[in-house]
């Protein structure tokens, strides 16, 4: 098992963000956490990915208790075995440096010291996310929203992580751009055997990317199961509302 979350609770100033959340994630699995804004899904993602502390419960990664893990070890996980794709690519990229340097940073962070090979790997990854490697010396500021998002993905995947967290990865993009990105992500997740946790309010994203869905409402998990189970035969009233209001199944 890659990730094991048990009884996780998180409150902000008396407000419940996550209440008694438990789930497992296995290598290669993609779990979508769906729910409307304020349902606690982003808080949950931040708690699991160690960006936010939580009040009670445990999170184990490959058997190691993240709560007992030191800051150094957690940060090392974050830049080697994990990836985090932010909704706004500007939060996940260094906008002040070139696209190539953005992709190469993780390599340099783990001690790669050969400029030529860093550049070579960065170019390969840019091609893999469908950005012309000839543009690797340009600033991400010159890229479109969809390109920035793909660059952010390359920057995360270059270290060949095993688990990637995504917070509304297609949010704010045009529909056609979204489709291309989702398709790319789907292929990468499959080819690399990546496990992923995707937070989204968009059930179409969940349908295309995930094998499992967890529906959250007011900090609680109201339903979880295989993606087609939740989409085709939602049990909870709230899941039925979500499915009926967003998607024709």
């Amino acid at each position, binding site marked *: 098992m890659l990730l094991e979350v048990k009884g996780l609770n998180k409150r902000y100033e008396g407000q419940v963000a996550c209440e008694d959340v438990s789930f497992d994630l296995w290598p290669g699995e993609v779990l979508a956490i769906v729910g409307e804004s304020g349902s606690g899904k982003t808080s949950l993602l931040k708690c699991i990915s160690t960006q936010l502390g939580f009040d009670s419960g445990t999170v184990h990664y490959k058997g190691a208790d993240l709560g007992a893990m030191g800051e150094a070890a957690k940060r090392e996980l974050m830049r080697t075995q994990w990836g985090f794709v932010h909704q706004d690519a500007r939060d996940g990229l260094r906008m002040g440096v070139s696209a190539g340097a953005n992709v190469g940073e993780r390599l340099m962070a783990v001690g790669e010291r050969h400029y030529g090979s860093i550049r070579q790997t960065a170019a390969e990854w840019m091609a893999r996310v469908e950005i012309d490697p000839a543009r690797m010396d340009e600033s991400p500021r010159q890229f479109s929203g969809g390109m920035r998002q793909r660059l952010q993905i390359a920057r995360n995947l270059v270290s060949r992580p095993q688990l990637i967290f995504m917070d509304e990865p297609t949010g704010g993009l045009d529909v056609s751009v979204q489709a291309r990105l989702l398709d790319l992500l789907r292929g990468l997740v499959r080819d690399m055997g990546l496990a992923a946790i995707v937070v989204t309010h968009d059930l179409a994203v969940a349908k295309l990317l995930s094998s499992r869905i967890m529906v959250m409402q007011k900090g609680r998990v109201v339903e979880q199961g295989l993606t*087609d189970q939740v989409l085709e*035969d939602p049990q909870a*009233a709230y899941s039925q509302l979500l499915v009926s209001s967003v998607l024709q199944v």
Partner: protein
Amino acid sequence: MQHLLEITALEKHFILHLQESQRIDVFSDFSLTLDEGQSLGLAGPSGKGKSSLLKIIWGSYQPQAGSIRIRHRGEVVDIMRASPREVLDIRRHTIGYVTQFLRVIPRVPAIDVVAEPLLERGVAPEKARQRASELLERLSIPEKLWKLPPLTFSGGEQQRVNIARGFCAPSPVLLLDEPTASLDALNRARVLELVRDALSAGSAVIGIFHDEAERLSVCSRSLIL
């Protein structure tokens, strides 16, 4: 367990929370068994649960009570109580499902759509594509289309790609939801041929057939719902 598939005391209803919690009963105390090489044709008016039964066996509909036990990799597993991972593994290795419509995945070429079930079992890509091209050829999909995503194909072509995908990996249990609907006579015959091949290879089939003659021609048993 003697049987390949054994459904016991199945209870399935839908509660429509958004429509004053209206309850729709689909199955009540429903039981069924199926063995290797057997074929069961489902018949009856629409809305009586033919497709629902396939979805329940596939695991995408969740019944309230009963059990659906299947022999999977030499062990008996209850699909209703299996973990999501186990259900996915059963789908990968034990149950094949030809749905009514192709779930179109953008940008993936037809040949890879068809080969995917084999690829998921870890079969080498060349071997999987070889099998996929045989099926596409049998279902008369022109070779020039194989490398294109099926998104732009006609309805009939998409359906034949879907059937090819369903038959690509040999499965002990095969679920067929109107596989011959909207096909011409030649391709209908080819599909029925594929079903017979699967049966003689030892697969068990549960199918919904639009046409009674077709159903009777491939099914050893019929169940009117």
